[in-house]
């Protein structure tokens, strides 16, 4: 029995699946659940994902069976059938994905059978079982990828050769998913390959269709999508590479070298790219160094993020800013195996902080408060001052109280609007630098 959770920073499998489907081009969700699920779960990222908004068929557009007591008692299959039929007639999309909520799973509705009728009739409808009690939003992302790329698209497609798929960032629950994917896509393209980023506005349904022909799947997550990538490889013959999302020049240099090896790109081409990118990156960074050094912007720091961001963010703070990372809180629920994988990715980054799997806002707040001077005269021997927390909006108020600096970079993130911002790669590293230092100098006016 998993315990209760304080202010969880994720929703259920259905919530992650809705966020994923509504961020994919041409893909339409049909939520087989009670009336509120689609709306409530959508608003989790609408607000909490840096005001991600509704998208093409998100928010109040999401078709739902809106089951009531009578469907719970007598079964919801008929209602679902009617919903699918009418959605096909009313909504324009390339693929319709039925997602199931807890109440219809408990009563045993057979969504697959419903969908089969439509599939047999030639309609592009699939069903992905996403009951909330089997996992949370990160698992929901994985289930949708599995359903679309491994179950729906036929195996045995010809390889397109120079194509790379990018996976691992969960829409909305990673508020920077678009900016990060765009930058990673840019770098892959700079090596002479095409990149499927799927979730950025430049993509369309053809990118989904071409995915099985890719030469490599890059998975920017130590904890999520591994099973999906393995099955993808077995079905479509595309090898996968699990790696940290690189943030800043130090990490991205290493990433590009390894990616070049995986894709058999000439060393010279990779080095030229790295040189060009570094010239640009440090052309900006070096001028920023003046204000950082003059103002003594050096901090003890803690990060509060999901597992995909923990090591990369810590690495940037430690390596590029020379800060001392005391804690990296990983906030999404993970299995033992996933924790080990996250731990080893963290260790491999050479990070000296303490990796903690904790989502409770008050527990994290206690830890942060513990670093502040205590006692009547504020004299202690183990204080960590000055302190900076890169976490979610939930950390803002405890940080104010503990006189620690704070920047929202993780879910729930509702004190910033995130549009093109991402922290991955060279451009993302500079963006992070800009956001961190801006948060410090903003106190001057």
């Amino acid at each position: 029995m998993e315990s209760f959770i304080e202010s969880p920073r994720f929703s259920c499998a259905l919530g992650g699946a809705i966020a994923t489907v509504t961020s994919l081009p041409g893909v339409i969700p049909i939520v087989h659940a009670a009336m509120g699920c689609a709306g409530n779960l959508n608003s989790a990222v609408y607000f909490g994902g840096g005001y991600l908004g509704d998208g093409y068929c998100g928010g109040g557009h999401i078709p739902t069976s809106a089951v009531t007591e009578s469907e719970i008692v007598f079964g919801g299959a008929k209602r679902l059938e009617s919903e699918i039929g009418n959605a096909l007639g009313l909504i324009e999309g390339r693929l319709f994905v039925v997602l199931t909520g807890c109440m219809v799973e408990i009563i045993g509705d057979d969504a697959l059978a419903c969908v089969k009728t439509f599939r047999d009739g030639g309609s592009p409808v699939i069903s992905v079982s996403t009951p909330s009690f089997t996992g949370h939003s990160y698992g929901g992302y994985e289930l949708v990828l599995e359903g679309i790329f491994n179950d729906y698209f036929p195996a045995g497609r010809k390889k397109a050769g120079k194509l790379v798929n990018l996976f691992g960032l969960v829409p909305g629950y990673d508020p920077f998913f678009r900016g990060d994917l765009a930058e990673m896509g840019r770098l892959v393209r700079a090596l002479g390959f095409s990149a499927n980023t799927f979730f950025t506005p430049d993509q369309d349904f053809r990118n989904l269709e071409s995915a099985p022909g890719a030469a490599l799947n890059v998975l920017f997550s130590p904890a999520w999508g591994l099973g999906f990538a393995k099955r993808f490889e077995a079905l479509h013959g595309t090898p996968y590479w699990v790696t940290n999302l690189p943030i800043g020049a130090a990490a991205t240099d290493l990433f590009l070298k390894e990616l070049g090896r995986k894709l058999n790109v000439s060393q010279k081409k990779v080095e030229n790219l790295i040189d060009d990118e570094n010239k640009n990156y440090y052309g900006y960074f070096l001028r920023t160094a003046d204000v950082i050094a003059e103002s003594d912007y050096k901090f003890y720091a803690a990060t509060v993020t999901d597992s995909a961001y923990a090591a990369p963010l810590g690495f940037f703070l430690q390596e590029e800013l020379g800060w001392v990372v005391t804690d990296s809180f990983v906030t999404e629920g993970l299995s033992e195996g996933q924790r080990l994988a996250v731990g080893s990715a963290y260790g491999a980054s050479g990070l000296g902080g303490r990796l903690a799997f904790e989502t409770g806002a008050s527990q994290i707040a206690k830890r942060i408060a513990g670093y502040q001077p205590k006692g009547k005269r504020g004299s202690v021997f183990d204080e960590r001052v000055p302190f900076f927390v890169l976490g979610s909006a939930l950390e803002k108020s405890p940080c104010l109280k503990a006189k620690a600096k704070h920047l929202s970079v993780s879910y729930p993130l509702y004190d910033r609007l995130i549009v093109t911002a991402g922290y991955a790669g060279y451009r993302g590293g500079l963006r992070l630098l800009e956001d961190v230092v801006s948060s410090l100098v903003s106190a001057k006016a």
Partner: protein
Amino acid sequence: MEGKYYGQKAPPVRENRLNAGDGFAGKCCASLLESGRGGLLTQTCRDFWQGNACQMSLTLMMATTIEKAAIVLHGPVGCGSNMHNLGPAVHKGKKCRGLVPAPLRWLSTNLTEGDIIGGGEAKLMEAILYADREFRPEIIFVVSTCAPSVIGDDADEIVTRAGAGTRARVVLLDCPGFKSRVVASAYDAFYHGLIRYLPLEGGPGAGKKGLGPADGARAVNVFNSTSIGQVDEAEIARLLGELGLRARFYAEYSNAGKFRGLTGAALNVSLCDIHDDYMLGFLWQRFGMPYVMGGMPIGYGGTRGWLESVAGPLGLGREAGEVADREEGRLRATVEPLLAGLRGKRVLSVGGIARVMAVSMALKELGLEPIGFHAYHYDDTAIPLLERTQAELPDLPVAVSSQDFELFGAVRKFGPDLVISHSGTQGLLAKMGVPAIQLYDVDRPCLGYKGLHSLAKRIAFAFANVSFQKRLAAKARFPYNKEWPKHDPYGHIKTT
């Protein structure tokens, strides 16, 4: 009539108690009245639906405002997804009311597959005890959702047992989403929890019926709601103050102590007929407290009618008329020039049934042309307002709809100049290229005379520059196929 529900474990839903329904389209309020009060809407459904809120989400909106309360959400982890939006909203709501804002303290019982099979009761008990220990709240709201309801968890039993050993009062709010398509059921679910698990008398001042200890003014309880901001409360307090009445606001932004003083007022006053009948009926039955439900104080007529409804039972009818005369005289002079160039603009109103009717009548008073409304639901508490609206606007087409595709179709078909609409639809309307304003906004006055002035200002401001909407409309894509706007927007509403 409702008496039978108060003693039950679970609150009723409005479909059963009040003939509630959420699908209808007709020529005028009279046609809705005829179908609604006859129970026809309970037999209505759609063959296509889109996602919306549920009674749980609105119950949470109310519960999160209560001071020194913690929340235990009993369900799978996703049911708490709205809490991250409610946190900042409540923070602001507390701050502007002079209360101490504190981070929302809440737990999810995080029901997993094993709990679904074995039951979630033990976990619920554990979470309640932890919340009591860790957060030291005065009240713990246990919000029970779909999954525990389907598997048969006895949350009432757990709450009662846990409550015997906790420092906090433990209040069950039983509001599984699938039990009602009408989110207004949430109001009853929340009030039912207060009624069943909290002491509502015996606090300081509770016995002094109607006399305020501080200023000698007569106290009246005014029932607020999530859509009513502090600026509206201030306006209502100001108007009641003119009558020598002291307004005490319930139930949002209250606390355990304030609830114990609930009975110390001369009168219970509703600001929205749809919101409060369950609670006010109970307070009448249990404590003999008289109450009034006089519509919403929106517009000249609406505000005057509401003021008179409060003043009447207290023998202040003449004074209320004088206040309304004075305020109206002052306001007309400032409002008239604001809308000078906008007379005859055609306006569609969308949202809660009480508000869309009140706003439609206010629009007529301002010289604009209401062309219809989408009410999010119907139930019998709307009857008096429907009768009044029918008298004022006999040919006003009406729909009962909370559906985006119907709103999309209606806007395309009827081409309003302006839409006054509930939050959650503004993005859609902007992308459709239609000027729109919020039906309510907790940061700006919407009620009383200040509210009417603000409404006129906001309408004029909406027309002042529509470049944003126009540019969006040129680029936006909608998921509906090209044929949809040619069809009857309400064609998917069916009778079972």
